[in-house]
């Protein structure tokens, strides 16, 4: 970037244009656009507004006032930006920034929040949801329940039951909505249709039997009143839960055993001797996840060796790819050598292939009993490439070297060629030996231009999920750890496994690990930027 450009632009648009100048610029700008441009602009804004209004409508009808307000506000700001004569930079920045804020900045902040909750399997929703699902899970048919004739009805894909009570009243309700009285069409004392709902035909009832038998329509707002369920789609019975919820005391009592489970603030109903009723609900647990990650022996061990291995993996990967790439750049940077071009194209092929595919192919070749390396290259050896904790680490590094050296080769070649020949000539004339020329002149100059890329490469390898996950899946698995972690896992693959694999998903703990990575990456970036001063160059 040259300073002249900046100067010209600054000179052309002075800091504070007068009001007249701004008006004139605005008029000129508006005049130049043309009708077609205006129509396109109006059309685009129309589409955005239509989507926003639809979204606000849906959100408001669902009671999500906060989100609805935010959507409306953003839409208003977008309109203001594009209808204003000024705000020129904003017109160009707004689309990208909206995505950036939602899917990059917000999710990072949200990760921070989740790290302080117990979000995960068994702690997914609110307390009300937990109570109703606990009650629903323990429903049992009341033995002397009256028979309620029912008709299965549908409203926008949601199934409901149209119930005729023994008194002849018609009531309708769904899984979420308790029974409410309605004016229904009666046929032989049984309600068969009601406004706003579609009655399912016999064939539809058969087709959706599974969904229909799952239906449990609450009898009233109080979960203790039980629910109506139908085993066949034509007759329903009253089901009562064998748990009793006492809202005032905040306790659930098991009517069969008499055990009282109470809310102790741990996010689940807990009995006196420590048994938890799951599902529980989501609460803020403060630093519990972090404390657990560091002090629980079975978690702290894996965290330590995974962190150390992450650093080792990133450092060795950068160093090995850089030195191999630099060596090759030097070797092939000789004008006298024939066919350099062909070597170069063949050597950058590993870089051109999507890395997930390469890693999967390597995983096949490194298979202990059938793989190409053991069977053919080593003549039937059985080296445990991917199954031994130490050898697997070496394998990961070899594969990452294969994936990464072409990049360093390209970068180093470019950097070497940009060093002026005069420097070397001057040094040689002064009597410097070739090795001294390289070590004292070329290498320092090369490092100046390559250092920022090495830092970027370190940051990339620090989170190089693909090569770990596709090659070893983090394995071999550490059987002592309560979370699915293995000896070649790096931090990011551990986050993924804790959150999304295994029997129980622990979003809270996974986010806490993410926060640890944030902090490490942030510290490294700050140090790196201090060193390279690359931010200073921004103007």
């Amino acid at each position, binding site marked *: 970037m040259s300073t002249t450009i900046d100067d010209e632009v600054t000179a052309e648009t002075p800091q504070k244009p007068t009001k007249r100048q701004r008006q004139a610029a605005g008029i000129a700008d508006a005049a130049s*656009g043309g009708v077609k441009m205006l129509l396109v602009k109006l059309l685009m804004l129309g589409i955005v507004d239509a989507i926003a209004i639809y979204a606000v409508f849906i959100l408001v009808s669902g009671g999500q006032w906060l989100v609805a307000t935010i959507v409306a506000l953003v839409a208003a700001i977008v309109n203001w930006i594009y209808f204003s004569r000024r705000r020129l930079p904003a017109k160009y920045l707004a689309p990208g920034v909206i995505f950036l804020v939602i899917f990059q900045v917000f999710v990072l902040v949200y990760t921070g929040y989740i790290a302080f909750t117990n979000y995960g399997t068994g702690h997914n929703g609110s307390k009300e949801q937990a109570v109703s699902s606990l009650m629903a899970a323990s429903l049992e048919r009341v033995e002397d329940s009256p028979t309620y004739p029912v008709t299965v009805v549908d409203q926008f894909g949601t199934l409901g039951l149209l119930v005729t009570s023994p008194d002849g009243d018609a009531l309708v309700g769904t899984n979420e909505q308790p029974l409410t009285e309605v004016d229904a069409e009666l046929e032989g004392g049984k309600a068969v249709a009601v406004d706003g709902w579609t009655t399912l035909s016999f064939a539809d009832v058969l087709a959706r039997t599974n969904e229909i038998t799952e239906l449990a329509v609450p009898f009233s707002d109080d979960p203790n009143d039980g629910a109506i369920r139908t085993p066949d789609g034509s007759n329903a019975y009253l089901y009562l839960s064998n748990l009793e919820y006492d809202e005032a005391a905040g306790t659930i009592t098991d009517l069969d055993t008499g055990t009282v489970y109470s809310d102790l603030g741990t996010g689940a109903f807990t009995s006196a001797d420590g048994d938890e009723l799951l599902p529980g609900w989501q609460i803020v647990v403060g630093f519990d996840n972090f404390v657990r990650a560091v002090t629980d022996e079975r978690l702290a061990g894996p965290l330590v060796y995974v962190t150390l291995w992450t650093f080792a993996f990133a450092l060795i990967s950068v160093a090995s790819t850089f030195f191999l790439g630099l060596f090759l750049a030097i070797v092939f940077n000789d004008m006298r050598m024939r066919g350099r071009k062909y070597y170069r194209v063949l050597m950058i092929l590993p870089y*051109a292939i*999507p890395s997930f595919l390469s890693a999967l192919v390597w995983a096949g070749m490194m298979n202990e009993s059938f793989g190409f390396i053991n069977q053919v290259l080593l003549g039937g050896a059985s080296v445990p490439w991917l199954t031994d904790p130490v050898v697997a680490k070496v394998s990961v590094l070899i594969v990452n070297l294969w994936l990464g050296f072409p990049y360093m080769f390209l970068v180093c070649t470019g950097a070497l060629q940009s060093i002026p020949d005069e420097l070397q000539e001057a040094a040689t004339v002064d009597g410097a030996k070739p090795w001294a020329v390289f070590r004292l002149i070329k290498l320092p100059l090369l490092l100046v231009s390559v250092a920022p890329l090495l830092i970027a490469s370190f940051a990339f390898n620090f989170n190089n999920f693909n090569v770990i996950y596709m090659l070893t899946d983090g394995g071999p698995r550490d059987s002592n750890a309560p979370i699915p972690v293995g000896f070649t896992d790096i931090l990011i693959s551990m986050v993924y496994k804790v959150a999304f694999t295994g029997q129980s998903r622990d979003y809270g703990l996974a986010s806490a690990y993410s926060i640890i990575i944030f902090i490490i990456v942030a510290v490294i970036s700050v140090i790196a930027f201090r060193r390279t001063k690359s931010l200073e160059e921004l103007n």
Partner: protein
Amino acid sequence: MATQQPVPGTPNGLIVGEIDEFTDASTRPAAAVGAPGRQVPPRRPFDVGRWFAATGWRHIVGVVMVAFSLFPIVFVISSSLNPQGTLTGSNALFSKIGLDSYVRILTDPQVPFTTWFGNTLIIAGITAVATVFLGALAAYSFSRMRFTGRRFGLISIVVVQMFPQLLAVVAIFLLMSAIGDWFPAIGLNTHIGLIMVYLGGALGVNTYLMYGFFNTVPASIDEAAKIDGAGHARIFFTIILRLVAPILAVVALLSFIASVNEFVVASVLLIDTEQQTLAVGLTKLVSNPRYADWSAFSAGAVIAALPVVALFLFLQKYIVGGLTAGAVK
């Protein structure tokens, strides 16, 4: 090349030639490190020792490295041509040649390979185009306009890209499932949702790359157009965008490759097999212990890699320029 003479009159050539007279034969490789030497005098008779010391050993390094680079590629091509399915059967390279595995991977009803391929092209293609568009808009404003918060904006782009989206994968999953509860068309398990998440990273290193390139286009062109009565939008769409076409191609390609390669977010958001991308589908396929058709997978891998490799080699010259500006693999 080996017999190239010092160009008379070129100071560079003359000096390099002279210097090499001093250089001891044993240090010649190291000398050549820096010196793009052209020193072998043509009249001297061919000497194997001299040739080896000068360039011969370089060919040995080259052959070894090419073997290291190519052997997984040769292996996967060979096993994709093997009509038998197993991993063991693929070990004898090119023992049998046939296209059976290609037919199997493309027609197997259990493995919707063509659907994955289509999904990948759609998702990566739309992401690439939209990334280029959003990035170019931002780069234009950073390059051509002076406004409050400009420096802050540039710095935030550098800082935010330090934290890749995959770190926030848990939050992205929960956010998308919440969005999916209200708007199923753009929530979990949809391509639009995944593309939107990818676009969150559009203003990152790519914008920076484009910003640098935009700065090399002289502002006097804008001014001339402005004097002729063109508005900012017309200058951007009809003048600037045409002038920066090479960087647009590079950014589109880098973004395309990145989306093809992306596994973490795609695997979390795309739940149904029919919705998945190649990265997710093929990885889950191979990690399934019951799936033993290695050569069909190899055929799939070859098909999947072809478009990316072709694009890469085709645009190689531009990419290498873009790489040094910060994209990393």
